[in-house]
C-alpha cells in the first residue's frame, strides 16, 4: 500500500475518501481552494494544501496546481473523487508521468469511455445493447433532423456529463432548438462540440451497474443502483436493489456490465449506466463512468464492501477484501442539495444550523458543518443521507425519520422535497420512472 494519497477533490467526497485512506493507516493529503478553507475535510486530512482561488479553473481543475501540491507533500498516489479531474485522461497520464499512482482506471479506458459516441460504438461491438442513435458526431441542426432517429429523441454532448447539455425533443422545431443549446453548452462546459442523438425511451428507469476491475484483470459486478428520481437529468435519490429490475434482467445486466469493463481492460471502480424499460424488462447502454460514483454508498450498505478501500487495493496491485458479492437488504440515498425544494434553484448561503440524523441504519456523508459558507462556485451537494433496511419498506420508514431529523438552516435545502417524495404513492410503490419529479412539479 502507498504511504500517502492526495485527494484531488473537495466537500463530501474528499471527506469520504480521506476517511478510508486514514483507516488504512495511509497519510491523507487534501487540497483546497480559498473558498473551502473551513470545510471539515480540510481539517480531517493529515495535511492540506491551498491550491488557488475559488474558481474551479484556477484550483480544482488546475492540473499544475494539484501536481505541485502532490510534489510538495511527496504524495505517492492520487485519488480524484468524482467530477473535476476524475475523468480527465490527460490528468491521469500526468499523475503517472510524475511517478505517482493513479487511483483509477487505465488512461485508455478513460479516453475510450469519455466520448459518448466512441463509447456507444465500442459497447455495441462488445455485445452490449445500445439505443438507436447516431454513430458519428452530428455536425449541425439540419443533419440532426436528417438523421431520422425518430421522436422523441435525446440530444447529448459527446463529451458531456452530469446531465448538462442534454435535452429531449418531440418534434423537428424542438430538435433544432435542442441541438443549438446542446452545442453551446458542449463547447462551454466540456470543450468538445460533438453532439450525438439517441432515441429517447419514455417511462424508462435509469439503472446502473457497479463494476470493479481487479488487479489480476478480472472484472466483477457488485449489483445495480436505480437512479430514476431525477431533476434536470440529474440524480436526486438512488436505491438498490431496483424495484424495476427482475432477477432475469438483473443477471443479463450484470453480465453485460462485466463485458463492458473487459472490453476496455477496466481496473478499479466504474459504473455502467443503462436505461431500462421496466414493462419489457429490456435495457440499453447509456454511458460508462470511469470513476467512483456519488451514489456508491448504497452499494456499500447492501454488500458491506468499502469501495474506496477496493480502489486503493486495486491501484496498489493487491487483492481485494472480498471473494463473494452477496447484496442483502435495501439501501436508499438522498442527495441533500442547497436549493429551494419547489423549483430546485440554487441557494448558496451561510450555514447557521447543521444537525445530522444518526443511528445504526443511517449513514450521512456530508461536506459541511455549522459555520461553513456554501458558495456559488461548486455543485449544490451538501450531504448524502443514506438509509438501510432489511427490506424497502423498512428503509422507507427509516428515511422518513431521518429526513425529519436532518436540520439545516441558512441555505434553503431540498429536504422538504424528500418529505413529499416519501409520501408520493408512485415512489412508495416502487413503480416509478425518470419522469417522476417532473410529474410531481407539473
Amino acid at each position, binding site marked *: 500500500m502507498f504511504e500517502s494519497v492526495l485527494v484531488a477533490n473537495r466537500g463530501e467526497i474528499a471527506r469520504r475518501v480521506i476517511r478510508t485512506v486514514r483507516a488504512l493507516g495511509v497519510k491523507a493529503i487534501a487540497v483546497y481552494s480559498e473558498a473551502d478553507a473551513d470545510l471539515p475535510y480540510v481539517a480531517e486530512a493529515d495535511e492540506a494544501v491551498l491550491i488557488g482561488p475559488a474558481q474551479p479553473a484556477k484550483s480544482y481543475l488546475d492540473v499544475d496546481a494539484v501536481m505541485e501540491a502532490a510534489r510538495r507533500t511527496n504524495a505517492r498516489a492520487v485519488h480524484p473523487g468524482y467530477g473535476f479531474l476524475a475523468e480527465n485522461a490527460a490528468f491521469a497520464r500526468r499523475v503517472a508521468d510524475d511517478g505517482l499512482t493513479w487511483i483509477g482506471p487505465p488512461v485508455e479506458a478513460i479516453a475510450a469511455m469519455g466520448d459518448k459516441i466512441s463509447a456507444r460504438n465500442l459497447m455495441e461491438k462488445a455485445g452490449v445493447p445500445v439505443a438507436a442513435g447516431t454513430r458519428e458526431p452530428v455536425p449541425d441542426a439540419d443533419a440532426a433532423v436528417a438523421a431520422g432517429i425518430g421522436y422523441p429523441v435525446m440530444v447529448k454532448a459527446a463529451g458531456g456529463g452530469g446531465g448538462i447539455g442534454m435535452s429531449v425533443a418531440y418534434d423537428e422545431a424542438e430538435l433544432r432548438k435542442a441541438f443549438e443549446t446542446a452545442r453551446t453548452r458542449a463547447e462551454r462546459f466540456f470543450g468538445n462540440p460533438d453532439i450525438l442523438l439517441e432515441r429517447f425511451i419514455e417511462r424508462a428507469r435509469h439503472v446502473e451497474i457497479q463494476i470493479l476491475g481487479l488487479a489480476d484483470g478480472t472484472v466483477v459486478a457488485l449489483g445495480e443502483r436505480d437512479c430514476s428520481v431525477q431533476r434536470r437529468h440529474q440524480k436526486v435519490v438512488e436505491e438498490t436493489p431496483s424495484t424495476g429490475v427482475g432477477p432475469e434482467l438483473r443477471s443479463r445486466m450484470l453480465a453485460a456490465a462485466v463485458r463492458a469493463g473487459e472490453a476496455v481492460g477496466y481496473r478499479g471502480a466504474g459504473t455502467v449506466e443503462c436505461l431500462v424499460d421496466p414493462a419489457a424488462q429490456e435495457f440499453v447502454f447509456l454511458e460508462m463512468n470511469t470513476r467512483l460514483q456519488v451514489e456508491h454508498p448504497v452499494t456499500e450498505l447492501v454488500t458491506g464492501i468499502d469501495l474506496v478501500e477496493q480502489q486503493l487495493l486495486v491501484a496498489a496491485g493487491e487483492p481485494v477484501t472480498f471473494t463473494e458479492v452477496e447484496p442483502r437488504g435495501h439501501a436508499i440515498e438522498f442527495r441533500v442539495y442547497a436549493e429551494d425544494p419547489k423549483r430546485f*434553484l*440554487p441557494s*448558496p448561503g451561510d450555514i447557521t444550523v447543521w444537525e445530522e440524523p444518526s443511528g445504526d441504519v443511517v449513514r450521512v456523508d456530508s461536506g459541511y458543518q455549522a459555520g461553513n459558507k456554501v*458558495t*456559488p462556485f461548486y*455543485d*449544490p451537494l451538501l450531504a448524502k443521507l443514506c438509509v438501510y433496511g432489511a427490506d424497502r419498506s423498512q428503509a422507507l420508514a427509516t428515511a422518513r425519520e431521518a429526513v425529519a431529523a436532518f436540520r439545516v438552516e441558512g441555505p434553503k435545502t431540498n429536504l422538504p422535497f424528500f418529505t413529499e417524495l416519501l409520501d408520493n404513492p408512485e415512489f412508495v410503490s416502487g413503480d416509478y420512472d425518470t419522469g417522476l419529479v417532473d410529474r410531481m412539479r407539473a
Partner: protein
Amino acid sequence: MAEVRAEMVANVWKVVVNEGDTVEDGDTLVILESMKMEIPVIAEDSGTVASLKVAEGDVIQEGDLIAVIE
C-alpha cells in the same frame, strides 16, 4: 420603472441586452450561473433597458440591482 434584482448569489455568465435596448415581458436580460446551473434573469415588464448594473464575470449578491427597465 421596474428594478430587476438578483434572487441569489451568482456569477454573471452572459449579458444578453445593452442599455437602450427595447425588451418585451419575458425576454432574457442576463444569464447568471450558480452551482453549475445557468439561471436566466427575465424582464417582467416591456420597456427600455434604462440601466444595466452588471458585467460578465461579476459576482453578485442576493438583492443586488441587475437592471432597470423603463
